[in-house]
């Protein structure tokens, strides 16, 4: 009997160390990746790199076009996706509780969240570029990404609205407020923190996307700085992709430096979102 016990105990210990090893594996991979990026890329990172246009020579090339394009895309996507996403969330959570259309919409959103991002590119190629005639523009790109990240914003909005206690709604109605007044003046302000968290996470995802944009017509190589929503554009991840496809080592180094910038943006945005989430969760201790 005790021999069985010892075996059991040994197995338990072995698994414990295996568990630690697996956890360390994940962390180690993260560390190795970050190290490889930083070590190769930091030397290349300088003001010239940030402000130069693309070039056939790696030493002259820079990410200015990509940064401007990414900023444009983030801004336009925010303009489109935030009102649509928050409005959808409000409808589903505050108005549509029992009706069939709301359930159908919910099923749609759940399914859409699992659709590969490149499919959105195909949708955009046909509908936005061709049928609606927006062409291969910033507008098309931001519409594409808006549809892609809409579920993120909708879910975050719904969670935040749900977290507002019903007693607040009751108090508002008892004072003679209408449903919309209650939502606008009490519930939205109280859920703003959670909604913003979702928005930032959605935009952070959008800034890192490349596949749907490539399919819907973002340019791989362009020296033109966009100045209008109908202009051609490229974004930082696509520039990185382009450089990684070139054989010259100099471009690989460029890609590394650009990755540092992209990761920096991504991590800062996610960090802000997490900070907001923590602050908001502390705040709503009614």
């Amino acid at each position, binding site marked *: 009997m005790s021999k069985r016990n010892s075996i059991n105990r040994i197995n338990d210990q072995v698994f414990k160390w295996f568990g630690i090893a697996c956890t360390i594996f994940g962390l180690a991979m993260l560390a190795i990746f970050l190290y*490889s990026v930083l070590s190769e890329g930091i030397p290349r990172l300088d003001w010239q790199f940030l402000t130069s246009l693309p070039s056939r020579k790696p030493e002259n090339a820079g990410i200015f076009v990509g940064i401007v394009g990414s900023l444009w895309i983030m801004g336009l996507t925010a303009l489109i996706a935030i009102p649509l996403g928050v409005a959808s969330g409000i409808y589903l959570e505050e108005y549509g509780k029992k009706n069939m259309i709301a359930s159908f919409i919910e099923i749609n959103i759940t399914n859409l969240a699992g659709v*590969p991002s490149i499919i959105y590119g195909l949708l955009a190629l046909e509908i936005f570029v061709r049928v609606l005639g927006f062409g291969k523009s910033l507008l098309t790109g931001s519409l594409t990404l808006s549809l892609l990240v809409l579920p993120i914003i*909708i879910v975050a909005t719904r969670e935040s609205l749900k977290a507002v206690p019903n007693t607040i709604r009751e108090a508002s109605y008892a004072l003679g407020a209408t449903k919309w007044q209650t939502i606008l003046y009490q519930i939205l302000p109280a859920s703003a923190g959670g909604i913003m968290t979702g928005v930032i996470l959605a935009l952070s995802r959008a800034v890192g996307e490349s596949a749907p944009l490539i399919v819907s017509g973002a340019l791989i190589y362009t020296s033109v700085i966009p100045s209008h929503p109908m202009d051609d554009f490229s974004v930082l991840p696509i520039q990185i992709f382009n450089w990684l496809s070139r054989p010259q080592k100099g471009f690989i180094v460029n890609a590394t430096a650009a990755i540092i910038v992209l990761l920096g943006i991504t991590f800062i945005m996610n960090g802000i979102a997490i900070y907001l989430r923590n602050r908001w969760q502390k705040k709503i201790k009614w």
Partner: protein
Amino acid sequence: MSGFAYSEMRIKEKIIEGLLLLSAAISILTTFGILYVLISDSYPFFQKVSLLEFFTDTQWTPLFADKHFGILPLVAGTLLTSGIAIAVALPIGLTIAIYLNEYASPGFRKVIKPILEILATIPTVVYGFFALVVITPYLQNFFPEMGGFNALSPGIVMGIMIIPLISSMSEDALYAVPKSLREASYGMGATRLQTSFRVLVPAASSGIIVSTILAISRAVGETMIVAIAAGQQPNLTANPLEPVETITTYIVQVSLGDVVQGSLEYQTIFAAGITLFALTFVLNNISFYFKKRFREKYE
């Protein structure tokens, strides 16, 4: 307040509700849009290429002079890379979930979980870089015959990317198992290992399955990692050391080139797209079924 102002207000409330409903209905439009585009743009393709040829031809060469339209090489590439990804992510992710749940202290768990989540936020081009520039050269130490483009490297990197998907969701599923089951097992003298595998994992199986299927779906739909590191050669193979092309990277390849709109070559990306959509749609709905089962069990 006069009656006139009253009905004005009622109308305003109704209009607002209508606008909100329209916003929410965008998602219905999106679904229909996707279905419409995929079906209507691949339909002409399937009129020229029979379904039999599509599913059985072993070559995919729509852009060459000698055109073949068999989807199998692309499907093989997708399955190979996704298979490697799951082979990496499932054991590691599940082990991490069990470890964090039963072995680790709550403080450790609180710190580690968010750090692992970082893996899920890294843009996929960056992962593509790791696969091409870090992992492939490293693997070439073990497989000197392997070329710079192969299926193993992006497969492993995809696996690393989806570890948090499996570990987080599985951990939540394990956490949801009622305390009474744990106590019963420990009370009989079982170790953490035995409790985990004989009691907890089976009890949380629906949740774990959901996380796995979602991770597979994510891997199947992944584009950039494979586009950067796997080469873009359709190749019907099970050998991970060879370059492959997946359904997704084919679509990117065509988008990068100059293909005439409306041509047969152009339509191939929609044929590929609808195949991909069908695959992930089936996977996702299987996972919804299991998710329902999981919910019913614990609520």
